[in-house]
């Protein structure tokens, strides 16, 4: 089959969506399909740029591709599902979050308090509704994303999980005294929760944060402000091999993002058989973590997180058991590209 994967790209920023796209394309290729990833740059702001991007995708007709007919178009990201094609399906990673679940929260302050924002919101909801209804099939990246679609757009979708990169390479080693948090350094990921928690922990433990992003400077000065230089370290971007290594040796993983759409980190922690600490408002990770069994779910408060870290440290045997239970849980979920393709194509 000739398959086009339509998505947007945010140049120089790497995140889960890239793995999602390339992972899908690679697997379809392995099955012998002719696959092309078609993407365009996307800018989160200003409003005019978002609108322009929507217009461009809306004007794209994939029915005409220089005489090549595409059998199936899989749209992954907003606003790529605005394109025209008789056989388009949507597998939504997330919608334009600032006008949906982040509306009127601290994560979209500027937008929710002006007329332009209000106008954009109406425009997006209207266009999302129209274009998604043109899709032959609507799938969501996770239960969280599916729930949002139902809540805001009254559209039903099937949640469909896919495996993280390097799935087969995770390994487990005895715990070293550190909590690991690999993620982009941006406000939705809430690294500051872990940093602040580190000034409340009683156990002799450190925190290692991998990844890079716009908030690096702020986080570094927060660490210095709290005199946590010797307890918390931002180690920047790391290689795949290092990522696996830091997962393998940690005492546990912290993943306190706000209302995460999917969140590979939870799954990766499970694959490395390590307990995960998440927050009650973390979104999809709540679907994976069984509190007290495969990790700990706590209030998004530094003190509560510190308590959870201490609990892991002072009950290390139990912590290791939770890790093992996490791995078993992952294996029971049947998350695989084979499964994904069966749901998408047939």
């Amino acid at each position, binding site marked *: 089959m000739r398959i086009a994967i339509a998505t947007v790209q945010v140049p120089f920023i790497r995140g889960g969506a890239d793995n999602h796209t390339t992972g899908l394309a690679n697997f379809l290729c*392995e*099955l*012998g399909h002719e696959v092309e990833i078609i993407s365009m740059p996307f800018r989160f702001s200003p409003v005019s740029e978002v609108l322009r991007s929507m217009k461009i995708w809306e004007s794209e007709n994939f029915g005409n591709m220089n005489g090549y007919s595409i059998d199936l178009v899989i749209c992954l990201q907003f606003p790529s599902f605005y394109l025209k094609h008789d056989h388009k399906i949507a597998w939504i990673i997330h919608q334009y979050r600032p006008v949906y679940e982040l509306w009127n929260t601290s994560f979209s302050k500027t937008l929710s308090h002006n007329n332009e924002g209000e106008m954009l919101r109406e425009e997006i909801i209207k266009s999302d509704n129209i274009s998604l209804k043109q899709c032959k099939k609507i799938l969501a990246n996770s239960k969280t994303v599916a729930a949002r679609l139902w809540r805001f757009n009254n559209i039903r979708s099937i949640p469909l999980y896919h495996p993280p990169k390097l799935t*087969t*390479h995770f390994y487990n*080693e*005895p*715990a*070293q*005294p*550190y909590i690991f948090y690999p993620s982009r350094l941006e406000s939705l990921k809430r690294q500051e929760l872990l940093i602040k928690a580190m000034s409340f922990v009683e156990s*002799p*433990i*450190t925190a*290692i944060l991998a990844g890079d992003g716009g908030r690096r400077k702020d986080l570094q000065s927060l660490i210095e402000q709290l005199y946590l230089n*010797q*307890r*918390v*370290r931002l*180690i920047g971007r790391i290689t795949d*091999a*290092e990522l*696996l*290594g*830091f997962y393998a*040796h940690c*005492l546990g993983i912290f993943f306190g993002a706000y209302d995460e759409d999917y969140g590979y980190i939870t799954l990766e922690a499970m694959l490395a058989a390590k307990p995960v600490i998440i927050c009650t408002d973390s979104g999809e990770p709540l679907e994976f973590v069984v509190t007290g069994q495969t990790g700990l779910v706590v209030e998004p408060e530094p003190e509560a997180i510190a308590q959870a870290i201490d609990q892991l*440290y002072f009950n*290390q*045997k139990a912590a290791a058991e939770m890790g093992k239970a996490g791995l078993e849980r992952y294996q029971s979920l049947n998350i695989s590209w*084979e499964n994904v*393709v*069966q749901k998408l*194509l*047939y």
Partner: protein
Amino acid sequence: MIESNNSEINVDQLIKKIREEVARRQPILERNLETIKVPSVNHTLTINHIENLLHNAQLKSQVRTEFPQKLNRFPFSLSQPLQKLALQLYSFLFKEQRAINFSLIEAIRESLTLNRKLIDQVMDLQGQVKEISAYLTATEKHLNEQLQAMDERYIKNDSYLKNDLTQQKRLITLFLEAARPRLPEPFSAEQLQTLRNEEPHQLDALYVAFEDQFRGSREEVRNTLNVYLPLIEDAKVGTPESPILDVGCGRGEWLELLRKSGYSARGIDINKVMLEQCHTIGFEVIEAEAIAYLQDLPDSSLGAVTGFHIIEHLPFAVLMKLFDETMRVLQPGGLIIFETPNPRNLFVGSGDFYRDPTHVNPIHPDTIAYIASLKGFINAESYFFAEQDNRSQLLASSNVKFDTLESYLSISRDFALIGYKP
């Protein structure tokens, strides 16, 4: 488990430790990534999908027996006979299309079956390839091991045989000496002679090995000898009436060259191992000592007497005898060619000459030419060799000036005495 007394943690050391562990692990990870590259493609999904499509197509292409439900929604409802007629008409009009549809479906079905068979075969072949490659790897390993073992054994055997041979030689000598007084009858004079005759040959094999090592390969030697062929031709010798005798023919390179050029020639040597080699190749060679052999020949019976790297092995008195006897047995117009190391070459004169332990004296080109003329040879002259256009040429020694150090270094390492019987 983290040690609980470790209250002071150094986060930098911790990070370093993890990174080191990762680096150690890296090769393993890379190997894993490689093996995982071979995708285990599951074709059953695709095939099932195609089968579903075919199934649908087949259902739709059946002959219609009922009127579509949808049409009943029209305000008017067709009466039963009219419906029947319409269906018959429809069925008639699309009869051909149905036949085509069935054929197509059948064709696709068959190709699907074929595909499935092919997939099975590919899987089977993949399995076989894997087995074969595993087998090859194992075989290669096995062979390498065997080769190594054989090498070791060979080296051991080789040195054992050499040592054993030396030992046997010593034992035989001892035995002979011890046995001699205890024999019921003493050795007859004849027997003693035979034994004594063999004694000088003890070193024959050694000398052959020596020759192989230092004189150059058979091919190389034969090429340098080409330079003398015109002399033989000019002198019109080498006929059955005026044969050529090569004294100390060694491995027989010169004889081979002469024979190929159509000349009649024979060789003599005292080295039994070399003689054996010549016999094997099929040359006429005689085991004889030069002077004694020449002494037995009638006057004027040879066209030429040659000797390559012989005269430097002879004591001076014997060398004189060689000239005398040669003069006697040569026919008038016959010639001598004696090649020998050139002591005027600084390398040869200062050291290389002495590499051969059986060499007696270096012979100066002037000296030997003078001796030859004293003994009655005419046009006796020593010749060096000069390379021109990759070919060796003779260069009369009287024309060469030794006035620079360079000339001592660049002069040929051998020279040849050439003289004629008047």
